[in-house]
């Protein structure tokens, strides 16, 4: 290896290690008793203390299921709406198309925190407080903007001949959409799905506003309250079980990325080049 390559790799390697330190610490803590963590924060987790995971699973299983349900329904809904809207913006001609498109995209510029209060007022008016639909409908409505942005750019770049020949064969726009555009846009759909999944999965503030009933808590809400008592002391939470909860909560994201990474990168690249 050339010296200048080594000079470059060393700091990069150091940065990589530093980036992983918090994760490794979390994993290490998840296999240790809370009191041992307090006694020696940096010690290695041997022997492994697996009971932390039993405690975490018991508390977080139902919230994890609810979260996956909310994410799944929301993503399906927003992809469906995004695809139709993006197809119209990308492939159809109608009066005011671009103005409408840019007015939709302009919503991306509004910081989410500013929308909290008006959204909450709307939620109240719709009677959706303490309902999972209050999460799903607002996720679909808010999440489809990024979907429209990605998909519209992708659809615009598809060869016009594909659609024209299809029309000459008698296909309508719905058939063009579902039989031509949609199959070709799988990587972009996965990219949008993953991006929005991350947002919905990790969302804390909106579920906190919407959900009051602890039986309907999402995973992040449950983690926020995940403060299991340390059986050995009385005055602080069980750090080991908490860390096990955090590790468990990270697993679904890792799984999704593991299976979808290739398509995700394709989608990002497609958006980057064609957009």
């Amino acid at each position, binding site marked *: 290896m050339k010296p200048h390559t080594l000079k470059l790799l060393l700091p990069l390697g150091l940065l990589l290690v530093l980036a992983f330190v918090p994760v490794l610490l979390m994993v290490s803590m998840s296999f240790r008793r809370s*009191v041992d963590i*307090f*006694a*020696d*924060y940096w010690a290695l987790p041997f022997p492994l203390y697996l009971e932390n995971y039993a405690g975490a699973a018991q508390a977080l299983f139902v919230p994890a299921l609810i979260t996956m349900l909310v994410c799944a329904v929301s993503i399906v809904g927003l992809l469906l709406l995004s695809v139709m809207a993006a197809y119209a913006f990308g492939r159809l001609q109608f009066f005011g198309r671009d103005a409408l498109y840019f007015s939709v995209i302009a919503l991306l510029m509004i910081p989410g*925190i500013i929308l*909290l*209060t008006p959204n*909450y*007022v709307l939620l*109240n008016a719709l009677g959706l*407080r303490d309902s999972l639909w209050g999460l799903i409908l607002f996720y679909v409505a808010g999440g489809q903007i990024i979907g429209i942005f990605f998909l519209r750019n992708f659809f615009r770049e598809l060869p016009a001949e594909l659609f024209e020949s299809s029309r000459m064969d008698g296909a309508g726009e719905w058939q063009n959409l579902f039989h031509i555009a949609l199959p070709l846009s799988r990587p972009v759909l996965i990219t949008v799905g993953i991006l929005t999944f991350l947002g919905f999965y990790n969302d*804390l*503030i909106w579920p*906190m*506003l919407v959900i*009051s009933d*602890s039986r309907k808590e999402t995973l992040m809400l449950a983690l*926020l*309250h*995940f*403060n*299991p*008592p340390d059986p*050995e*002391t*009385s*005055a*602080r*939470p069980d750090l080991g079980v908490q860390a096990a909860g955090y590790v468990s909560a990270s697993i679904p994201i890792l799984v999704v990325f593991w299976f979808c990474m290739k398509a995700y990168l394709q989608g990002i690249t497609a958006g980057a080049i064609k957009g």
Partner: protein
Amino acid sequence: MKTRFRMTLPLCLMAGALLPVAPVSAAPGDATPRQFEGEIVVAILSSRTMMPGFEAVAAAYRQHQPNVRVVFETKGGDAGLSYPTWLNTQLNTPDPRPDVVSTNYNRNYSHYVDLDFYRQMINPYSGTPWEDVFDFDYNEVRNARGQRITLGTQGVKVLWYYNRTRFAELGLEAPETWTEFLEACARIKEAGYTPITLSFGLRFHQWLAEILFDQFSRPYVKKIRAQTGDWLYEPGRDGAWTYDPEDPDNDRRVNINTMRLLKAVADGDIRFDTPEFLEVLRALKQVQSFSRADFFLVSPTDFTDSYNLFLREDALIHLDTTRLIPALESDLREISDTPGQPRFEWGFFDTPPLESPMVHGPARAVESIAGEYLGVIRKNERQTERVMDFLMFWLSPEGYQAYVDGLIAAGQFRPSGEILVRGVNLPAEFSVPFSRVPRSGNAEIPLNWIFLLPPPGSSETRASLNALQRYLAGQLSEEAAAARIQAELQASVERILRMNQINPFFLRHPQFKPE
């Protein structure tokens, strides 16, 4: 570590200590609870572990008010972001859902109930004036209008914990003067230990700064006390008051006019660039020099980390509150190599007094509120009556006893200090440790807030703290840092008025009640 615990933190409403008791329409002698019906939503900063207590107090209340449904919603174990955001969103809507919230996390809302209005009313669940069974006076914190909008259920005191075993080995005892404190730190440092576990967080720039400045700021109370003709002047109380800096409760015995405090700061009558304040800066720098340099600047929320340093005997002195007392002993036993024996013996001491000739009074401590932070959103008269009835129940001996018993039965009772509801019976393991801590007067009064006076997160707060940091880093002289802090605090008054929607007229005419 309990995030509920925030001491006065944003608690802090802007100014005003020792305001008076508002006139009250008491109904003396009538101790029979009125019957109410409807729903009350309690959504204070809390964790799920407190639910057994909530359920117990709700069940006990149902015995008296069978037609009232009390709903507890635990919001946030994380006071840093999620609870304030949730609360702010609720308060920005025309129809906020909760009735009881932790009002200290948004002090500028204009529709809170002034709890002083109720303190002399007969509590129907004790048959006595409410203030007889609840210690309203433990901590005197109000919003800019002088209203008491938050009640804390427990009182905590800031203490210096020390490793008595290592102190004895080094021939040291708990210091009683600032000089002895610095000498002990130097001796500890020589022996290879970190003397103090502090970092640049609220323990340093809030608690310690308040305690140090308090020793110089006593005379300022004469400038901000209620004067004859002030809307809150009480001849019996304020007319009889005399200034006595040796009395640790001297400023509790007089009504404080918040507008006079703001006016004094704005006019430069209360100053933070005086020779006395320079002494405070120097003392802070001395303390910093005995903290671990790498640790000092790392984390502003350093309770767990610094506690770890103390437990592991890396550092021998730790600044914390009484909340640590029940935990420390059991933690030291758990991590000990000798079963049943603590890893080391420990003790605590109050902040040693400064010995400057400019000191006006003995050192006091930060004595603040903790536990549950409770305040009420004013919706309509009927709902306010209903909610206040519940709050009076909760903060009565019967209600808080039910709450505590519920937590104890679930193994979740973790008091931070003495219970401010009088007449609550606690097992000895919870009451005895705190009874060993004597009160020494409260330095956490608006006069001493310094970095708390401007609204949290405001440019004035950031600039003041930045000046302190640069002074500690040797980038600013003490005079320059003090001048910057003075300028920022003076400028912050306008922002305080604006955020609280108080007309500047009331600053020019502090005798009138700000509306």
